């Protein structure tokens, strides 16, 4: 019981924090920064406990006597929780200036964000489909609200409406799929589905496959894979910067946590039936995402569209898992981390600029001569772009490298070749920004580097990206790229069947 309490602490802390902030937000005199700091404090304590749990946990169920095997605690779930929490902390701190610069933020914003993280953390722990559905919806519904948080902006409200309608439709597919699965298997536990499939290899399982496909559709929608990607650009552009940042990084990782669990455990027996879909979806996502990204004129749009492309790479690796690659799963986790850092930094700079200069829509043209105006920020932005493009000596390069390696390992040379081609195309839209920043004169005079928590964190993230790309093993006891990959594969080992 004590052990269970210890394991549930991080979750509980986030939940209590959400409730506390909900009540706290009724006090009108509190400054916004203080809400932010309280939220970060809750998240940080939770993060520290998760880090300790990661060292000790192997394979446990939360309060097994009450919830049976609904919530699993293993290294994989803990690793994902660590990512959510650090993602949320970084998002909140980097956007500190932005919150202050807009009048529509209040205490409830932070409460909603915590609820969303609570949903994601539940999702990482889930071992059962109904729980998974509830977690996804919990994370999503709060996000619907957050997307429309800027109530002055019709665009924001429009984005919210689109997101709600499309998201609900996608959610319907999930619950429908669960119903079908339950109809066949008679249970919604992940392990039970797996053993049913193993024991009924010769019987007709088409209903089950259809059910699982419907679940897949929802998950593909949530990560923004083609052809369910149409919402991504509109919603990302419409949302306030902190929310976009949160969705692009943290939410994406959350959906991958359940996707990986489902794919590695339950879908294993029916790989031959579903691999074609994954492949087609991966290719379509890569191509359509790239084409969308090229056509964007706003930076937020470009980052949104390019996030679709990054999902395509991870789907490639997902396909590789099915074909039998040994380290594709670790490669996905590594890629998630690398993308998470790079996108966080890039969105961070945008939000910093938006808060600083009263610009709502940052287009490419706004970045002309940026390097002469703010050399350090431009350097950081360059690092983020290089990492997103997968340039050597950044963590993004290693992420792509591991993914392509895992695809090549399975013998799918053409698919890997397509991935590399797409990576080349991506250089166009990422380097366009770098070129604009450096090769144009600046209309404004040079500005001093503003020492604030947001800017220092942005620089820190940039350094981490370079560190992850080249720092391997140079300093003892600090995990470089190799270390991250080891952590990922360690976490995957504890996944139960």
């Amino acid at each position, binding site marked *: 019981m004590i052990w269970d309490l210890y394991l549930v602490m991080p979750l509980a802390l986030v939940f209590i924090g959400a409730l506390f902030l909900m009540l706290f937000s009724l006090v009108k005199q509190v400054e916004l920064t203080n809400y932010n700091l309280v939220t970060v404090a809750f998240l940080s304590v939770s993060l520290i406990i998760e880090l300790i749990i990661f060292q000790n946990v192997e394979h446990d169920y939360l309060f097994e006597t009450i919830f049976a095997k609904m919530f699993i605690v293993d290294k994989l779930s803990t690793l994902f929780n660590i990512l959510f929490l650090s993602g949320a902390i970084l998002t909140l701190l980097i956007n500190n200036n932005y919150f202050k610069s807009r009048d529509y933020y209040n205490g409830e914003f932070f409460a909603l964000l915590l609820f969303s993280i609570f949903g994601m953390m539940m999702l990482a722990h889930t071992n059962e489909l109904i729980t998974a559905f509830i977690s996804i919806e919990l994370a999503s519904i709060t996000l619907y609200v957050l997307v429309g948080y800027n109530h002055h902006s019709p665009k924001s409200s429009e984005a919210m409406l689109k997101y709600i309608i499309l998201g609900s439709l996608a959610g319907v597919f999930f619950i429908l799929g669960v119903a079908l699965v339950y109809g066949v298997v008679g249970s919604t536990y992940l392990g039970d589905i797996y053993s049913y499939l193993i024991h009924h290899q010769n019987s007709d399982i088409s209903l089950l496959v*259809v059910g699982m496909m419907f679940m897949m559709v929802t998950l593909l929608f949530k990560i923004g894979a083609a052809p369910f990607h149409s919402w991504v650009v509109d919603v990302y552009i419409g949302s306030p910067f902190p929310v976009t940042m949160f969705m692009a990084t943290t939410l994406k990782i959350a959906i991958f946590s359940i996707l990986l669990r489902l794919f590695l455990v339950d879908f294993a027996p029916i790989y031959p039936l579903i691999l074609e879909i994954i492949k087609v979806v991966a290719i379509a996502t890569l191509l359509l995402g790239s084409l969308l990204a090229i056509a964007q004129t706003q930076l937020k749009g470009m980052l949104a569209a390019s996030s679709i492309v990054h999902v395509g790479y991870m789907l490639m690796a997902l396909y590789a898992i099915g074909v039998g690659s040994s380290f594709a799963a670790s490669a996905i986790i590594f890629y998630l981390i690398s993308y998470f850092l790079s996108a966080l930094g890039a969105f961070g700079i945008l939000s910093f600029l938006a808060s600083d200069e009263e610009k709502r829509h940052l287009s490419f043209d706004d970045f002309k001569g940026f390097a002469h105006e703010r050399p350090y920020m431009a350097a950081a932005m360059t690092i983020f772009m290089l990492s997103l493009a997968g340039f050597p000596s950044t963590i993004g390069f290693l992420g792509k490298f591991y993914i392509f390696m895992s695809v090549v390992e399975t013998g799918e040379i053409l698919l890997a070749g397509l991935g590399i081609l797409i990576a080349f195309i991506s250089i166009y839209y990422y380097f366009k920004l770098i070129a604009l920043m450096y090769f144009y004169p600046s209309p404004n005079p040079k500005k001093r580097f503003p020492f604030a928590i947001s800017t220092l964190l942005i620089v820190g993230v940039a350094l981490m990206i370079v560190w992850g790309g080249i720092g391997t093993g140079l300093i003892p006891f600090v995990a470089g790229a190799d270390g991250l990959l080891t952590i990922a594969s360690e976490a995957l080992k504890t996944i139960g069947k």
Partner: protein
Amino acid sequence: MESLVYVALFAPLVGSLFAALFGMSPKNLITGIATSALLFISWVASVLLLIHVVGNGAVSTTLMDWIGAGDLLIQFGFQVDAVTAVMMVVVTTVSTVVHVYSIGYMDHDKGFNRFFSYLSAFVFSMLVLVMSDNFAGLFIGWEGVGVCSWLLIGFWYHKEDVSTDINPSISPSWAANEAFIMNRIADLGMLIGIFLIYWNTGSLTYDTFFASIPTMDAQLLVAIAVALFIGAMGKSAQFPLHTWLADAMEGPTPVSALIHAATMVTAGVYLVIRANPLYSHEAVEGVSLFIAYLGTFVAMFAATMALVNRDLKRIIAYSTLSQLGYMFAAAGLGAYWVALFHLAAHAFFKALLFLGAGNVMHAMHDELDIFKMGGLSKVMKWTYIYMGLASLALAGIFPLAGFYSKDTILEVAINEDTYLIWFALWVTAGLTAFYSFRQVFLTFSGNERYKELGHRPHEMPNYVLIAMAPLAILAVIFGFVFMDSFQAFTSTVLPAYEMSHATHEIAWVFIILTTLIALSGIFYAYKKYGAGLIRDEKVESSFVYKLLSNQYYIPKFYDSMFTKPYREISDMLWKRVDLKIVDAIVDAIAKFIYFSGDKSRAMQTGNLSHYLNWMAAGVLLVAVIVSLSAVLG
């Protein structure tokens, strides 16, 4: 002892990084003092190491595993044996002096801090080069000194191209590029040699390679020996890759003293000495003999160009080239310790000579034409003494350092029965004496021609002159104090080269002959230039004079044979191939992608019901594929 190795190696690096911190800021004396102090520490460590190696033998240590991939394991390993210890002491001695000297010399330069950063970085690279226990480390140092040399030759990169009647138009940046590119050509040879070694022994450490030499194929050994020597030719500016050295004089004079006289250019000689088990192997006898003949040729060839040159620094540069030829001649004949001894002795007196030239330049406001000087001994007494001493040593007059080292080389030539080499080197000794003193007399005695130009020369500050003293002392005493112990010490690593009995018997005859020709060279120079400059139109318009002053037209030949055709080919490829074919294809691809991106944006209508349609289509697609794979699979 390991800590001493690291202190000696890393002190210059620390100094360089420290000075680099101030790179963008205005002159700060602290950078000069700190780097000099750190170099002094490095020098102390080197001397202590030398003493240790004399007493207890070689020290070796491994810093870390550098590259481990598959079967390849390259360690950052260092070994300090007799040869390395000697090189370290030579390098750090000259470097320390040059650092202190530069504080005075670079006093008014706005790149003061940057200069010291580069200079210390150079010393660090040079130490890596000589201390490494494997070819990979050697190559890193090799390239490191190359880069630092490039940075330092082009230190005054803002200077425009200057056109003179003697030289093709060159500027510091042009000279820096020339030096770098010439060395790249040679480095290719070096790399091939290193790869050959790795492929055939599976390791890059010296010990493994030397141990496997007896079992290796003769032709392979020849290939390795040739490839490595090509590398050495570039770095030591041997014919036909010699043109960069004279042009490298565009760099600041302390740089010329340190890099282009005492240390970097001797790296090629060091390589041959270090690889002596290879070059003394009987299978590569031909290569070694070729090295000896090439060295002899360069010695004479460079000396002839020095005879007529008017540029103070270029004369010394040619004499460096000539002395490097001597070293290669000795090494090629198998007398490795003699080559190393001449290397060390030469480092001291040549650095001194260069620093003296620096004093003159400083006094004459960067005027280098010795025809415009004369009579400077009155105002620059100490510089006169230093340069005179250094020139005496260079000419090989008893009992200065050059006498011992050069005479031994000539003795080796006799001992090996290679009389042609002896004769050529003997004649060169005379030429050396002549051009050294032609320069000294034209600069320091006779009529004061500089007055017409309105210069007011002045001596350098005292601390600069005191800093040069160690070099002067070494140039004088190095031969008769250290020669015997040097031979005994280096024989722990290098093959002991002994003169035959017969050579020993008649050596005195040749010593007298050599001294005679050197003295007559000096005497002739005195007769011709002692009283002042008398120009002879007839001589200066003669074919030989023009040939020599135009460096045998080799720079012009390179320009018209390599540089211009290369440029034309590049132009052609750029205009015809790159612009018309490559760019066109790239543009077409880009246009296609952009076009399709534009078209597919039409999907992104922003209309919610369209999005819903897309989603339904997606679900349908998934269903179709599942049922298809269920039916077919």
